């Protein structure tokens, strides 16, 4: 790819000052993410995968190196509505309907009422929740709530979708279904997606690139380009290619733990 990277990290360092002394959460992280990539970050807890995602979203400030999003600083990118963020919990407001929740970022960003209604309809359709706009969050299943939160992140047409273990709290069957849906959504919208997970099959199934990280200090140990086609039925997970990548990810994770 010749185009400019959407996200570019160079020698990124982040050290937290804690009561037990400094903790190096990220050390010398170098990564380029291109437009339309689906990049998964995988690694054991404490490897800095979530921290890196939070740096991209300007929720944490790196202490060294450089990080650009769409050629801007993360802070500027946020103001330019470059990304939507999906957390592990759906985090829907119980006092707002599903449509009301999806409308929330649009209200904050100052869209007109007509635009709000139009965009809400569009993303509800995108995540297969058309007709559920008037329901309250508690009336929906966990999987549907998470879909609503993805719709909320998509509502304002950001190019980048940052997802921090979005399906971590869901059961396997629902997770499989949502993974499939997410791939379709990615194909339709051509977003750039950064996806944090600790499930190897999930990472391999979804990604075009898999970033394997290891802890103490948090760093990238391997970046795997997936040879899998863009079109991925669920049973691709039994193909030799899939198993080979999964194996390589597992090896990478093990290597990161070698000194333990």
């Amino acid at each position: 790819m010749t185009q400019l990277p959407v996200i570019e990290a160079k020698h990124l360092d982040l050290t937290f000052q804690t009561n037990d002394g400094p903790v190096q959460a990220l050390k010398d992280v170098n990564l380029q993410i291109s437009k339309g990539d689906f990049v998964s970050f995988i690694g054991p807890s404490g490897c800095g995968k979530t921290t890196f995602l939070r740096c991209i979203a300007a929720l944490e400030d790196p202490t060294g190196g450089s990080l650009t999003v769409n050629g801007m600083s993360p802070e500027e990118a946020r103001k330019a509505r470059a990304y939507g963020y999906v957390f592990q919990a759906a985090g829907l407001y119980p006092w707002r309907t599903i449509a009301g929740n999806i409308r929330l970022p649009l209200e904050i960003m100052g869209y007109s009422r007509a635009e709000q209604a139009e965009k809400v309809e569009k993303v509800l359709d995108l995540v297969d929740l058309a007709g559920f706009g008037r329901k309250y969050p508690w009336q929906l299943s966990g999987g549907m709530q998470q879909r609503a939160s993805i719709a909320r992140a998509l509502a304002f047409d950001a190019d980048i979708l940052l997802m921090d273990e979005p399906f971590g709290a869901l059961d396997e069957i629902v997770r499989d279904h949502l993974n499939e849906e997410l791939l379709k959504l990615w194909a339709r919208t051509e977003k750039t997606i950064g996806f944090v997970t600790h499930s190897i099959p999930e990472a391999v199934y979804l990604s075009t690139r898999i970033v394997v990280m290891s802890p103490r200090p948090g760093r990238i140990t391997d970046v795997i380009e997936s040879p899998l086609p863009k079109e991925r039925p669920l049973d691709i997970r039994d193909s030799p290619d899939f198993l080979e990548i999964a194996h390589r990810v597992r090896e990478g994770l093990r290597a990161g733990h070698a000194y333990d």
Partner: protein
Amino acid sequence: MKRVLIPVITVVAAIMAFWYAACVPMNIKFALMTAERQGEVVSPEGMMTRRDMSAFVLAARNPGQWDDTWVQAKPRLPAPHQVVAELWSSTMEVNPTSKRSLVFHGWITLSATLLGFAIGAGLGIVLAVGIVHSRAMDMSVMPWAIASQTIPILAIAPMIIVVLNSVGLQGLVPKAVISAYLSFFPVVVGMVKGLRSPSPMDLDLVKTWSATRAQSFWKLRLPASAPYLFASLKIGVASSLVGTIVGELPSGTGQGLGFRLLSGSYYGQTVQIWSALFATAILAACLVAVIGAVERGVLKRMGLG
């Protein structure tokens, strides 16, 4: 309905039974004295003999005089029906504008309570908003708010009356100030808790949308605080009423349920005291019920009910 009614009736009946039973030892000495004067035979005879005897022993030895413990004009402990009768006659059978009417006194107390509660709740909410948004206020206001509640209200109420009187304020306002003094505290505590109830994730989320402080306040913190606010408003309104009553004791205006309690105790009118107490309790229950109804309505409209 029946499953609720039976336990409720049982509890009320148990309280009534205990109350009537308690009237016997409480009032037996006076009952025996009166009976003896009227020539009846009581055991043991002679007021001086009975003076240092246990009320329970006297009650046990004179079951024939029990009836008289429930009908005295100035009993130590009035019987329930006496209190009910006094409540009835002082609300229904006298002109509501008369100084003998509990409706009159109740209104005086209620108006000061409502004003005090409005001031207290408003102040509480404003302080809570400040505390949540300013670290300086968090460090400086909260300790004072807590300290203010450790001072006995009975000690500070007369001071407030005197100070405000010297600047020309009397009647409603000083009582409302005391009432506000008591009621702002639960509102501050509850509201701070409520405004801080959004999780770090909720706050990060609005941050990713570049929401301003005002936007995250109106769209996240404030609605999230609603259930906490109502819980503390219920406590606050009850404290408000207590504050007003305490304020009426030294204010010397001769009006209000607090004054009714005080004058009852001056003249040994125990029935009057108890009926004023009950009027206060009923008023408090009504105020809490009104807030409860508003709470249900609001939370239901918010989809939280």
